[in-house]
Protein backbone atom coordinates (compact mmCIF):
# COMPACT_ATOMS: atom_id res chain seq x y z
CA UNK A 1 0.00 0.00 0.00
CA UNK A 2 2.86 2.37 0.71
CA UNK A 3 6.12 3.04 -1.07
CA UNK A 4 8.15 3.12 2.10
CA UNK A 5 6.40 0.81 4.52
CA UNK A 6 7.00 -2.92 4.81
CA UNK A 7 5.67 -5.44 2.31
CA UNK A 8 4.69 -9.08 2.70
CA UNK A 9 6.09 -11.35 0.02
CA UNK A 10 6.52 -15.01 -0.79
CA UNK A 11 10.17 -15.19 -1.60
CA UNK A 12 12.05 -17.99 -3.31
CA UNK A 13 15.11 -19.09 -1.36
CA UNK A 14 18.26 -18.58 -3.39
CA UNK A 15 20.55 -20.46 -1.05
CA UNK A 16 21.16 -21.52 2.52
CA UNK A 17 24.73 -21.87 3.71
CA UNK A 18 26.68 -22.33 6.90
CA UNK A 19 28.74 -19.39 8.13
CA UNK A 20 30.68 -20.35 11.24
CA UNK A 21 28.08 -21.37 13.85
CA UNK A 22 25.32 -19.66 11.87
CA UNK A 23 23.15 -20.16 8.83
CA UNK A 24 22.79 -17.54 6.14
CA UNK A 25 19.65 -17.56 3.99
CA UNK A 26 19.39 -15.47 0.85
CA UNK A 27 15.92 -14.86 -0.57
CA UNK A 28 14.80 -13.07 -3.70
CA UNK A 29 12.74 -10.12 -2.47
CA UNK A 30 13.08 -7.05 -4.69
CA UNK A 31 10.47 -5.02 -2.80
CA UNK A 32 12.24 -5.51 0.51
CA UNK A 33 15.72 -4.99 -0.92
CA UNK A 34 14.83 -1.66 -2.51
CA UNK A 35 13.24 -0.30 0.68
CA UNK A 36 15.92 -1.53 3.07
CA UNK A 37 18.03 0.78 5.20
CA UNK A 38 20.63 -0.65 7.56
CA UNK A 39 19.34 -1.63 10.98
CA UNK A 40 15.99 -2.86 9.68
CA UNK A 41 14.83 -6.44 10.02
CA UNK A 42 12.53 -8.99 8.41
CA UNK A 43 10.06 -11.36 10.05
CA UNK A 44 9.72 -14.81 8.60
CA UNK A 45 6.84 -17.27 8.88
CA UNK A 46 8.07 -20.70 9.93
CA UNK A 47 6.67 -24.21 9.72
CA UNK A 48 4.42 -23.84 6.64
CA UNK A 49 0.90 -22.45 6.10
CA UNK A 50 -0.86 -24.76 8.53
CA UNK A 51 1.87 -25.00 11.09
CA UNK A 52 1.03 -24.89 14.77
CA UNK A 53 4.00 -22.54 15.11
CA UNK A 54 2.02 -19.39 14.64
CA UNK A 55 4.41 -16.52 15.16
CA UNK A 56 7.00 -15.14 12.80
CA UNK A 57 10.67 -15.01 13.69
CA UNK A 58 12.48 -11.67 13.44
CA UNK A 59 15.97 -11.45 11.90
CA UNK A 60 18.18 -8.50 11.16
CA UNK A 61 18.92 -7.97 7.48
CA UNK A 62 22.56 -8.76 6.91
CA UNK A 63 22.95 -7.92 3.24
CA UNK A 64 20.99 -6.81 0.22
CA UNK A 65 22.24 -7.26 -3.34
CA UNK A 66 20.89 -6.15 -6.71
CA UNK A 67 21.00 -9.70 -8.14
CA UNK A 68 17.67 -11.07 -9.49
CA UNK A 69 16.09 -7.66 -9.00
CA UNK A 70 17.02 -7.59 -5.33
CA UNK A 71 18.03 -10.21 -2.79
CA UNK A 72 17.98 -10.11 1.00
CA UNK A 73 20.21 -12.14 3.27
CA UNK A 74 19.78 -12.80 6.96
CA UNK A 75 21.81 -14.83 9.38
CA UNK A 76 20.60 -16.96 12.22
CA UNK A 77 21.65 -19.40 14.87
CA UNK A 78 19.52 -22.51 15.45
CA UNK A 79 17.87 -21.96 18.82
CA UNK A 80 14.48 -23.64 18.73
CA UNK A 81 11.73 -24.98 16.47
CA UNK A 82 11.51 -22.01 14.12
CA UNK A 83 15.19 -21.64 13.38
CA UNK A 84 15.59 -25.43 13.10
CA UNK A 85 12.88 -25.41 10.41
CA UNK A 86 14.56 -22.51 8.61
CA UNK A 87 17.89 -24.33 8.61
CA UNK A 88 16.22 -27.11 6.59
CA UNK A 89 15.10 -24.83 3.75
CA UNK A 90 16.60 -25.46 0.33
CA UNK A 91 16.94 -23.29 -2.75
CA UNK A 92 13.63 -22.65 -4.55
CA UNK A 93 11.59 -23.25 -1.37
CA UNK A 94 9.25 -20.34 -0.70
CA UNK A 95 9.44 -18.24 2.46
CA UNK A 96 6.76 -15.80 3.59
CA UNK A 97 8.73 -12.70 4.58
CA UNK A 98 7.58 -9.32 5.89
CA UNK A 99 9.97 -6.39 5.73
CA UNK A 100 11.78 -4.20 5.99
CA UNK A 101 10.59 -3.57 9.54
CA UNK A 102 11.72 -1.17 12.23
CA UNK A 103 13.64 2.05 12.33
CA UNK A 104 17.08 2.04 10.72
CA UNK A 105 20.32 3.24 12.27
CA UNK A 106 20.51 7.01 11.95
CA UNK A 107 23.52 7.98 9.86
CA UNK A 108 25.75 10.93 10.75
CA UNK A 109 25.54 13.96 8.46
CA UNK A 110 29.32 14.47 8.46
CA UNK A 111 32.11 11.98 7.93
CA UNK A 112 32.90 10.98 11.51
CA UNK A 113 34.66 8.04 13.17
CA UNK A 114 32.29 5.21 14.01
CA UNK A 115 32.93 2.13 16.10
CA UNK A 116 30.56 -0.78 15.51
CA UNK A 117 30.13 -3.24 18.37
CA UNK A 118 28.43 -6.60 17.85
CA UNK A 119 27.78 -9.59 20.05
CA UNK A 120 27.07 -13.02 18.51
CA UNK A 121 24.35 -12.86 15.86
CA UNK A 122 23.98 -9.18 16.76
CA UNK A 123 26.85 -8.50 14.41
CA UNK A 124 24.64 -9.17 11.38
CA UNK A 125 23.06 -5.71 10.93
CA UNK A 126 26.42 -3.98 11.44
CA UNK A 127 27.79 -5.04 8.07
CA UNK A 128 25.36 -3.12 5.86
CA UNK A 129 25.70 -0.27 8.35
CA UNK A 130 29.47 -0.29 7.87
CA UNK A 131 28.98 -0.02 4.12
CA UNK A 132 26.53 2.89 4.42
CA UNK A 133 28.92 4.68 6.76
CA UNK A 134 31.85 4.10 4.44
CA UNK A 135 29.86 5.51 1.54
CA UNK A 136 29.44 8.68 3.59
CA UNK A 137 33.16 8.92 4.14
CA UNK A 138 33.05 7.78 7.76
CA UNK A 139 35.85 5.84 9.36
CA UNK A 140 34.60 2.44 10.55
CA UNK A 141 36.14 0.28 13.27
CA UNK A 142 34.73 -3.03 14.47
CA UNK A 143 34.63 -4.68 17.86
CA UNK A 144 33.00 -8.10 17.60
CA UNK A 145 32.51 -10.59 20.37
CA UNK A 146 31.05 -14.01 20.98
CA UNK A 147 31.12 -16.97 23.31
CA UNK A 148 33.70 -18.79 21.20
CA UNK A 149 35.62 -18.41 17.92
CA UNK A 150 32.82 -19.84 15.77
CA UNK A 151 30.32 -17.37 17.27
CA UNK A 152 32.27 -14.31 16.20
CA UNK A 153 30.48 -13.66 13.00
CA UNK A 154 32.36 -12.78 9.77
CA UNK A 155 35.68 -11.72 11.24
CA UNK A 156 37.25 -11.79 7.79
CA UNK A 157 34.66 -9.46 6.27
CA UNK A 158 35.00 -7.15 9.24
CA UNK A 159 38.75 -6.93 8.73
CA UNK A 160 38.25 -6.24 5.06
CA UNK A 161 35.74 -3.41 5.32
CA UNK A 162 36.89 -1.69 8.51
CA UNK A 163 39.93 0.39 9.36
CA UNK A 164 40.56 -1.86 12.37
CA UNK A 165 38.76 -4.88 13.80
CA UNK A 166 39.16 -6.24 17.32
CA UNK A 167 37.66 -9.53 18.47
CA UNK A 168 36.84 -10.94 21.89
CA UNK A 169 35.66 -14.37 23.00
CA UNK A 170 34.48 -15.53 26.41
CA UNK A 171 36.71 -18.62 26.22
CA UNK A 172 39.70 -16.90 24.63
CA UNK A 173 39.57 -19.20 21.57
CA UNK A 174 39.84 -16.18 19.27
CA UNK A 175 41.05 -12.61 19.79
CA UNK A 176 41.15 -11.24 23.31
CA UNK A 177 39.64 -13.31 26.10
CA UNK A 178 36.79 -11.36 27.65
CA UNK A 179 33.95 -9.13 26.56
CA UNK A 180 33.58 -6.45 23.95
CA UNK A 181 33.40 -3.82 26.66
CA UNK A 182 36.84 -4.86 27.97
CA UNK A 183 38.41 -3.51 24.79
CA UNK A 184 35.89 -0.90 23.68
CA UNK A 185 37.34 1.99 25.71
CA UNK A 186 40.78 1.48 24.20
CA UNK A 187 39.36 1.28 20.66
CA UNK A 188 37.37 4.50 21.20
CA UNK A 189 40.54 6.28 22.25
CA UNK A 190 42.88 4.86 19.64
CA UNK A 191 40.45 5.37 16.80
CA UNK A 192 39.19 8.73 18.11
CA UNK A 193 35.65 7.42 17.72
CA UNK A 194 32.84 9.98 17.62
CA UNK A 195 29.90 7.56 17.86
CA UNK A 196 29.21 3.95 18.83
CA UNK A 197 26.73 1.62 17.12
CA UNK A 198 25.91 -1.59 18.97
CA UNK A 199 23.76 -4.67 18.49
CA UNK A 200 23.60 -7.73 20.71
CA UNK A 201 22.06 -8.98 23.93
CA UNK A 202 20.56 -6.47 26.36
CA UNK A 203 23.30 -6.78 29.05
CA UNK A 204 25.93 -6.10 26.39
CA UNK A 205 24.06 -3.03 25.12
CA UNK A 206 23.81 -1.74 28.63
CA UNK A 207 27.56 -2.16 29.23
CA UNK A 208 28.41 -0.61 25.85
CA UNK A 209 26.20 2.37 26.62
CA UNK A 210 28.04 2.84 29.91
CA UNK A 211 31.45 2.79 28.17
CA UNK A 212 30.27 5.28 25.52
CA UNK A 213 28.99 7.46 28.35
CA UNK A 214 32.34 7.55 30.14
CA UNK A 215 33.92 8.69 26.86
CA UNK A 216 31.20 11.25 26.33
CA UNK A 217 30.14 9.99 22.90
CA UNK A 218 26.66 9.03 21.69
CA UNK A 219 25.63 5.42 21.18
CA UNK A 220 22.94 3.86 19.01
CA UNK A 221 21.80 0.43 20.16
CA UNK A 222 19.66 -2.15 18.39
CA UNK A 223 17.66 -4.22 20.90
CA UNK A 224 16.26 -7.77 20.68
CA UNK A 225 12.95 -8.13 22.51
CA UNK A 226 10.53 -11.01 21.89
CA UNK A 227 8.01 -9.94 19.27
CA UNK A 228 4.66 -11.38 18.30
CA UNK A 229 3.86 -9.16 15.32
CA UNK A 230 6.85 -6.99 14.43
CA UNK A 231 4.43 -4.47 12.91
CA UNK A 232 3.43 -2.47 15.97
CA UNK A 233 -0.04 -3.81 16.77
CA UNK A 234 0.36 -6.36 19.58
CA UNK A 235 2.21 -4.28 22.21
CA UNK A 236 4.20 -7.25 23.47
CA UNK A 237 7.71 -5.97 22.65
CA UNK A 238 7.82 -2.86 24.84
CA UNK A 239 10.81 -1.48 26.72
CA UNK A 240 11.06 1.69 28.87
CA UNK A 241 12.60 4.57 26.93
CA UNK A 242 13.02 8.20 28.02
CA UNK A 243 11.87 10.74 25.43
CA UNK A 244 13.45 14.12 24.66
CA UNK A 245 10.84 15.58 27.00
CA UNK A 246 12.24 13.56 29.92
CA UNK A 247 9.15 11.36 30.10
CA UNK A 248 9.54 7.58 30.11
CA UNK A 249 7.24 5.63 27.84
CA UNK A 250 6.77 1.93 27.25
CA UNK A 251 7.63 1.93 23.55
CA UNK A 252 7.42 -0.83 20.99
CA UNK A 253 10.85 -2.10 20.08
CA UNK A 254 9.60 -3.33 16.68
CA UNK A 255 8.39 -0.03 15.19
CA UNK A 256 9.78 2.63 17.54
CA UNK A 257 13.05 0.64 17.48
CA UNK A 258 14.82 -1.71 17.27
CA UNK A 259 17.38 1.13 17.15
CA UNK A 260 17.35 3.56 20.09
CA UNK A 261 19.76 6.08 21.54
CA UNK A 262 21.50 4.02 24.23
CA UNK A 263 21.28 6.80 26.82
CA UNK A 264 17.50 6.84 26.44
CA UNK A 265 16.92 3.15 27.11
CA UNK A 266 16.34 2.45 30.80
CA UNK A 267 18.34 -0.78 30.81
CA UNK A 268 18.01 -1.24 34.57
CA UNK A 269 14.24 -1.15 34.25
CA UNK A 270 13.79 -3.44 31.25
CA UNK A 271 11.26 -6.08 32.29
CA UNK A 272 9.46 -3.68 34.62
CA UNK A 273 7.05 -0.78 34.35
CA UNK A 274 9.04 2.07 35.97
CA UNK A 275 6.89 3.92 38.51
CA UNK A 276 7.38 7.20 36.64
CA UNK A 277 6.51 5.83 33.18
CA UNK A 278 3.64 7.43 31.32
CA UNK A 279 0.51 5.62 32.43
CA UNK A 280 2.18 3.56 35.19
CA UNK A 281 0.01 2.82 38.21
CA UNK A 282 -0.19 6.02 40.24
CA UNK A 283 1.26 8.02 37.36
CA UNK A 284 1.09 11.69 38.28
CA UNK A 285 0.73 13.22 34.84
CA UNK A 286 -2.95 12.30 34.66
CA UNK A 287 -5.02 15.33 33.80
CA UNK A 288 -1.99 17.55 33.14
CA UNK A 289 -1.26 18.74 29.63
CA UNK A 290 -0.72 15.41 28.00
CA UNK A 291 2.67 14.73 26.44
CA UNK A 292 2.84 13.55 22.86
CA UNK A 293 2.42 9.81 22.57
CA UNK A 294 3.60 9.31 19.03
CA UNK A 295 6.58 7.11 18.41
CA UNK A 296 8.04 9.76 16.18
CA UNK A 297 8.19 12.22 19.07
CA UNK A 298 10.77 10.24 20.96
CA UNK A 299 14.39 9.29 20.33
Amino acid at each position, binding site marked *: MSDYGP*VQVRCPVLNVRRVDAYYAITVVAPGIAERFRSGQFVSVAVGGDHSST*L*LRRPFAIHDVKPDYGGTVEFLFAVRGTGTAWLAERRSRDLLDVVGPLGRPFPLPRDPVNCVLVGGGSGSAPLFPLAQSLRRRGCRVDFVLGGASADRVFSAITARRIAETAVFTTDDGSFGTRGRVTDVLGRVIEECRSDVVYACGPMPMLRAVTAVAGTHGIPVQVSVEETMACGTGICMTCVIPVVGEDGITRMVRSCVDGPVFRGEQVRFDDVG*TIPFDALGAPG*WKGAGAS*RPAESARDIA
Partner: protein
Amino acid sequence: MNTDLRVRLGALELPNPVVTAAGCAGSGRELAQFFDIAEIGAVTTKSVMLEPHAGRPAPRMAETPSGMLSTTGMQGPGVDVFLQRDLPWLLSRGGRAIVSVAGSGTAEFGELARRISAEPGVDAIEVNLSCPDPADPDGRRFADDAARAAAVVSTVRSHARSDLPVLAKLAADVPDVVALATACVEARADGLSMINTVRGMAVDPRTLRPAVAGGIGGLSGPAVRPLAVGCVYRVHEALPEVPIIGMGGVRTGADVVEFMAAGASAVAVGTVNFSDPSACVRVLREFTEALESRGVPRAADLVGAAHRPGTGV
Protein backbone atom coordinates in the same frame (compact mmCIF):
# COMPACT_ATOMS: atom_id res chain seq x y z
CA MET B 1 -21.78 -15.26 -9.33
CA ASN B 2 -22.35 -12.01 -7.48
CA THR B 3 -22.23 -12.99 -3.85
CA ASP B 4 -23.92 -10.62 -1.42
CA LEU B 5 -21.49 -10.29 1.47
CA ARG B 6 -23.48 -7.79 3.53
CA VAL B 7 -24.32 -8.76 7.10
CA ARG B 8 -26.38 -7.15 9.82
CA LEU B 9 -25.67 -6.78 13.51
CA GLY B 10 -28.97 -5.32 14.62
CA ALA B 11 -29.03 -1.75 13.34
CA LEU B 12 -25.46 -1.98 12.10
CA GLU B 13 -24.95 -3.11 8.54
CA LEU B 14 -21.45 -4.12 7.43
CA PRO B 15 -20.41 -4.60 3.78
CA ASN B 16 -18.91 -7.98 4.72
CA PRO B 17 -18.54 -10.09 7.87
CA VAL B 18 -14.76 -9.86 8.41
CA VAL B 19 -13.71 -7.44 11.14
CA THR B 20 -10.62 -7.16 13.32
CA ALA B 21 -10.57 -8.24 16.98
CA ALA B 22 -9.88 -5.65 19.67
CA GLY B 23 -6.19 -5.28 20.52
CA CYS B 24 -5.12 -7.22 17.44
CA ALA B 25 -5.13 -4.41 14.89
CA GLY B 26 -4.35 -1.20 16.78
CA SER B 27 -6.56 1.38 15.11
CA GLY B 28 -5.85 0.02 11.67
CA ARG B 29 -2.90 2.25 10.87
CA GLU B 30 -0.22 -0.45 10.90
CA LEU B 31 -2.30 -2.96 8.94
CA ALA B 32 -3.13 -0.27 6.38
CA GLN B 33 0.45 -0.63 5.18
CA PHE B 34 -0.59 -4.03 3.87
CA PHE B 35 -4.17 -3.54 2.62
CA ASP B 36 -6.96 -1.00 2.29
CA ILE B 37 -8.65 -0.88 5.67
CA ALA B 38 -11.95 0.21 4.07
CA GLU B 39 -12.21 -3.19 2.36
CA ILE B 40 -12.97 -5.12 5.52
CA GLY B 41 -16.23 -5.07 7.48
CA ALA B 42 -14.90 -2.93 10.33
CA VAL B 43 -11.92 -2.30 12.56
CA THR B 44 -12.49 -3.02 16.21
CA THR B 45 -10.02 -0.75 17.96
CA LYS B 46 -7.86 -1.71 20.90
CA SER B 47 -9.79 -1.27 24.14
CA VAL B 48 -9.49 2.37 25.10
CA MET B 49 -9.44 3.53 28.72
CA LEU B 50 -9.97 7.00 30.14
CA GLU B 51 -6.35 7.62 31.15
CA PRO B 52 -3.04 6.44 29.68
CA HIS B 53 -1.99 3.00 30.91
CA ALA B 54 1.54 1.61 30.75
CA GLY B 55 0.36 -2.01 30.88
CA ARG B 56 2.22 -4.96 32.34
CA PRO B 57 5.94 -5.69 32.51
CA ALA B 58 7.74 -7.84 29.91
CA PRO B 59 7.92 -10.64 28.99
CA ARG B 60 4.44 -10.11 27.67
CA MET B 61 4.29 -12.92 25.18
CA ALA B 62 4.97 -16.62 24.83
CA GLU B 63 4.28 -18.82 21.85
CA THR B 64 2.18 -21.92 22.57
CA PRO B 65 0.94 -24.73 20.27
CA SER B 66 -1.30 -23.04 17.65
CA GLY B 67 -1.51 -19.92 19.74
CA MET B 68 0.12 -17.54 22.11
CA LEU B 69 -0.14 -16.30 25.66
CA SER B 70 -0.13 -12.56 26.14
CA THR B 71 -0.34 -10.07 28.97
CA THR B 72 -0.26 -6.55 27.60
CA GLY B 73 -2.38 -5.20 30.43
CA MET B 74 -4.35 -2.69 28.36
CA GLN B 75 -1.42 -0.48 27.48
CA GLY B 76 -2.75 2.57 25.70
CA PRO B 77 -2.61 6.34 25.50
CA GLY B 78 -6.07 7.03 26.92
CA VAL B 79 -9.25 8.27 25.30
CA ASP B 80 -8.04 11.84 24.56
CA VAL B 81 -5.21 10.68 22.33
CA PHE B 82 -7.48 8.04 20.82
CA LEU B 83 -10.09 10.62 19.86
CA GLN B 84 -7.55 13.17 18.63
CA ARG B 85 -5.24 10.89 16.74
CA ASP B 86 -6.41 7.32 16.16
CA LEU B 87 -10.12 7.54 15.46
CA PRO B 88 -9.90 10.45 12.96
CA TRP B 89 -7.20 8.57 11.08
CA LEU B 90 -9.33 5.44 10.79
CA LEU B 91 -12.40 7.38 9.66
CA SER B 92 -10.37 9.42 7.18
CA ARG B 93 -9.37 6.16 5.49
CA GLY B 94 -12.97 5.12 5.09
CA GLY B 95 -12.71 2.52 7.84
CA ARG B 96 -15.74 1.54 9.88
CA ALA B 97 -14.99 1.78 13.60
CA ILE B 98 -16.20 -0.45 16.37
CA VAL B 99 -14.68 1.25 19.41
CA SER B 100 -13.80 -1.10 22.26
CA VAL B 101 -13.93 0.40 25.74
CA ALA B 102 -12.47 -0.82 29.02
CA GLY B 103 -13.17 0.88 32.32
CA SER B 104 -11.52 0.40 35.64
CA GLY B 105 -14.98 0.84 37.13
CA THR B 106 -18.59 1.00 35.98
CA ALA B 107 -18.57 4.82 36.07
CA GLU B 108 -15.51 4.95 33.83
CA PHE B 109 -17.32 2.78 31.27
CA GLY B 110 -20.19 5.29 31.33
CA GLU B 111 -17.87 8.24 30.82
CA LEU B 112 -16.14 6.48 27.90
CA ALA B 113 -19.51 5.72 26.30
CA ARG B 114 -20.49 9.39 26.61
CA ARG B 115 -17.22 10.64 25.12
CA ILE B 116 -17.27 8.19 22.22
CA SER B 117 -20.93 8.83 21.45
CA ALA B 118 -20.09 12.50 20.99
CA GLU B 119 -17.85 11.61 18.03
CA PRO B 120 -19.52 11.37 14.66
CA GLY B 121 -18.65 8.38 12.53
CA VAL B 122 -18.35 5.62 15.15
CA ASP B 123 -20.29 2.52 14.12
CA ALA B 124 -20.61 0.70 17.44
CA ILE B 125 -19.21 0.45 20.95
CA GLU B 126 -17.86 -2.87 22.17
CA VAL B 127 -17.72 -3.31 25.95
CA ASN B 128 -14.70 -5.31 27.11
CA LEU B 129 -15.98 -7.21 30.13
CA SER B 130 -12.73 -9.13 30.61
CA CYS B 131 -10.92 -6.41 32.52
CA PRO B 132 -10.60 -6.73 36.30
CA ASP B 133 -13.40 -5.17 38.32
CA PRO B 134 -11.76 -2.84 40.87
CA ALA B 135 -14.83 -3.09 43.10
CA ASP B 136 -14.50 -6.86 43.33
CA PRO B 137 -12.68 -7.91 46.51
CA ASP B 138 -11.04 -10.84 44.69
CA GLY B 139 -10.06 -8.74 41.66
CA ARG B 140 -12.23 -10.83 39.35
CA ARG B 141 -13.26 -9.67 35.90
CA PHE B 142 -16.64 -8.05 35.28
CA ALA B 143 -17.52 -11.09 33.15
CA ASP B 144 -17.01 -13.38 36.16
CA ASP B 145 -20.21 -12.03 37.69
CA ALA B 146 -23.19 -11.80 35.33
CA ALA B 147 -24.84 -9.13 37.49
CA ARG B 148 -21.78 -6.87 37.47
CA ALA B 149 -21.31 -7.41 33.72
CA ALA B 150 -24.95 -6.47 33.19
CA ALA B 151 -24.51 -3.34 35.29
CA VAL B 152 -21.63 -2.24 33.04
CA VAL B 153 -23.63 -2.91 29.87
CA SER B 154 -26.60 -1.02 31.21
CA THR B 155 -24.41 1.97 32.20
CA VAL B 156 -22.84 2.03 28.74
CA ARG B 157 -26.26 1.74 27.10
CA SER B 158 -27.63 4.67 29.07
CA HIS B 159 -24.61 6.91 28.36
CA ALA B 160 -24.23 5.97 24.70
CA ARG B 161 -26.12 7.73 21.92
CA SER B 162 -29.35 5.80 21.52
CA ASP B 163 -28.71 4.96 17.85
CA LEU B 164 -25.22 3.59 18.53
CA PRO B 165 -25.17 -0.21 18.86
CA VAL B 166 -23.61 -1.52 22.06
CA LEU B 167 -21.93 -4.93 21.88
CA ALA B 168 -20.99 -6.83 25.03
CA LYS B 169 -17.73 -8.76 24.74
CA LEU B 170 -17.96 -11.90 26.83
CA ALA B 171 -15.32 -14.11 28.40
CA ALA B 172 -15.45 -17.82 27.62
CA ASP B 173 -13.82 -19.11 30.77
CA VAL B 174 -16.88 -18.52 32.96
CA PRO B 175 -19.14 -21.14 34.51
CA ASP B 176 -22.13 -20.33 32.29
CA VAL B 177 -21.57 -18.28 29.16
CA VAL B 178 -25.28 -18.47 28.22
CA ALA B 179 -26.26 -16.94 31.56
CA LEU B 180 -23.69 -14.19 31.07
CA ALA B 181 -24.96 -13.53 27.54
CA THR B 182 -28.57 -13.45 28.72
CA ALA B 183 -27.77 -11.00 31.52
CA CYS B 184 -26.02 -8.67 29.05
CA VAL B 185 -28.91 -8.83 26.58
CA GLU B 186 -31.38 -8.10 29.37
CA ALA B 187 -29.20 -5.08 30.21
CA ARG B 188 -29.92 -3.96 26.61
CA ALA B 189 -26.79 -5.05 24.78
CA ASP B 190 -27.59 -4.91 21.05
CA GLY B 191 -25.18 -7.70 20.27
CA LEU B 192 -22.47 -9.95 21.69
CA SER B 193 -18.80 -10.46 20.87
CA MET B 194 -17.18 -13.70 21.85
CA ILE B 195 -14.70 -14.83 22.86
CA ASN B 196 -11.93 -12.93 24.60
CA THR B 197 -8.63 -14.62 25.44
CA VAL B 198 -8.77 -17.53 27.86
CA ARG B 199 -6.60 -17.55 30.96
CA GLY B 200 -3.71 -19.94 30.74
CA MET B 201 -0.09 -20.42 31.61
CA ALA B 202 3.17 -21.72 30.24
CA VAL B 203 6.39 -22.44 32.11
CA ASP B 204 9.72 -21.61 30.50
CA PRO B 205 11.45 -25.01 30.27
CA ARG B 206 14.88 -23.45 30.81
CA THR B 207 14.24 -21.24 33.82
CA LEU B 208 11.23 -23.17 35.20
CA ARG B 209 9.63 -19.77 35.70
CA PRO B 210 6.31 -18.64 34.25
CA ALA B 211 6.86 -17.73 30.59
CA VAL B 212 5.01 -14.42 30.86
CA ALA B 213 5.34 -11.87 33.66
CA GLY B 214 2.61 -12.31 36.24
CA GLY B 215 2.29 -16.02 35.45
CA ILE B 216 -1.18 -16.08 33.93
CA GLY B 217 -1.67 -14.86 30.39
CA GLY B 218 -4.46 -14.76 27.85
CA LEU B 219 -4.46 -17.66 25.41
CA SER B 220 -5.48 -16.83 21.85
CA GLY B 221 -5.08 -18.17 18.34
CA PRO B 222 -6.35 -21.32 16.57
CA ALA B 223 -5.84 -23.29 19.82
CA VAL B 224 -9.00 -21.66 21.27
CA ARG B 225 -11.22 -21.95 18.19
CA PRO B 226 -13.27 -25.02 19.18
CA LEU B 227 -13.96 -23.38 22.54
CA ALA B 228 -15.06 -20.18 20.80
CA VAL B 229 -17.25 -21.94 18.25
CA GLY B 230 -18.87 -23.86 21.09
CA CYS B 231 -19.70 -20.63 22.94
CA VAL B 232 -21.17 -19.06 19.81
CA TYR B 233 -23.24 -22.17 19.11
CA ARG B 234 -24.70 -22.37 22.60
CA VAL B 235 -25.46 -18.67 22.89
CA HIS B 236 -27.06 -18.54 19.42
CA GLU B 237 -29.20 -21.52 20.35
CA ALA B 238 -30.40 -19.78 23.52
CA LEU B 239 -30.71 -16.30 22.01
CA PRO B 240 -31.26 -16.77 18.25
CA GLU B 241 -32.33 -13.16 17.66
CA VAL B 242 -29.19 -11.61 19.18
CA PRO B 243 -26.41 -10.77 16.72
CA ILE B 244 -22.98 -12.21 17.53
CA ILE B 245 -19.46 -11.33 16.39
CA GLY B 246 -17.59 -14.62 16.63
CA MET B 247 -13.83 -14.77 17.19
CA GLY B 248 -11.09 -16.95 18.56
CA GLY B 249 -8.46 -18.41 16.30
CA VAL B 250 -9.87 -17.39 12.93
CA ARG B 251 -7.18 -18.15 10.36
CA THR B 252 -8.94 -18.97 7.08
CA GLY B 253 -12.13 -18.31 5.13
CA ALA B 254 -13.34 -21.75 6.20
CA ASP B 255 -13.12 -20.63 9.82
CA VAL B 256 -15.48 -17.76 9.02
CA VAL B 257 -17.93 -20.24 7.51
CA GLU B 258 -17.67 -22.32 10.67
CA PHE B 259 -18.33 -19.42 13.05
CA MET B 260 -21.25 -18.15 10.95
CA ALA B 261 -22.78 -21.61 10.76
CA ALA B 262 -22.51 -21.81 14.54
CA GLY B 263 -24.48 -18.57 14.79
CA ALA B 264 -22.17 -15.58 14.30
CA SER B 265 -23.29 -12.75 12.01
CA ALA B 266 -19.76 -11.37 11.69
CA VAL B 267 -16.35 -12.79 12.51
CA ALA B 268 -13.23 -11.13 13.89
CA VAL B 269 -9.62 -11.91 13.03
CA GLY B 270 -7.31 -11.52 16.03
CA THR B 271 -3.97 -13.13 16.71
CA VAL B 272 -3.55 -14.24 13.11
CA ASN B 273 -3.06 -10.56 12.17
CA PHE B 274 0.25 -10.80 14.02
CA SER B 275 1.51 -13.70 11.97
CA ASP B 276 -0.06 -12.60 8.68
CA PRO B 277 -0.56 -8.84 8.36
CA SER B 278 -2.68 -9.41 5.23
CA ALA B 279 -4.86 -11.98 7.03
CA CYS B 280 -8.09 -9.95 6.99
CA VAL B 281 -8.24 -9.51 3.21
CA ARG B 282 -6.99 -13.05 2.61
CA VAL B 283 -9.65 -14.47 4.93
CA LEU B 284 -12.32 -12.34 3.23
CA ARG B 285 -11.22 -13.57 -0.20
CA GLU B 286 -11.18 -17.20 0.93
CA PHE B 287 -14.59 -16.75 2.54
CA THR B 288 -16.03 -15.28 -0.66
CA GLU B 289 -14.61 -18.20 -2.65
CA ALA B 290 -16.08 -20.65 -0.17
CA LEU B 291 -19.55 -19.12 -0.62
CA GLU B 292 -19.20 -19.20 -4.39
CA SER B 293 -18.10 -22.79 -4.49
CA ARG B 294 -21.04 -23.78 -2.29
CA GLY B 295 -23.40 -21.71 -4.36
CA VAL B 296 -24.51 -19.64 -1.36
CA PRO B 297 -25.76 -16.31 -2.76
CA ARG B 298 -25.86 -14.32 0.49
CA ALA B 299 -23.36 -14.50 3.35
CA ALA B 300 -26.18 -13.84 5.79
CA ASP B 301 -27.82 -17.13 4.76
CA LEU B 302 -25.04 -18.97 6.56
CA VAL B 303 -25.87 -17.59 9.99
CA GLY B 304 -26.94 -20.42 12.27
CA ALA B 305 -26.80 -23.11 9.54
CA ALA B 306 -25.35 -25.60 12.01
CA HIS B 307 -28.55 -25.35 14.04
CA ARG B 308 -30.79 -26.31 11.15
CA PRO B 309 -31.55 -29.87 10.15
CA GLY B 310 -30.34 -31.05 6.78
CA THR B 311 -26.97 -30.59 5.18
CA GLY B 312 -25.41 -27.29 4.26
CA VAL B 313 -27.27 -24.17 3.30
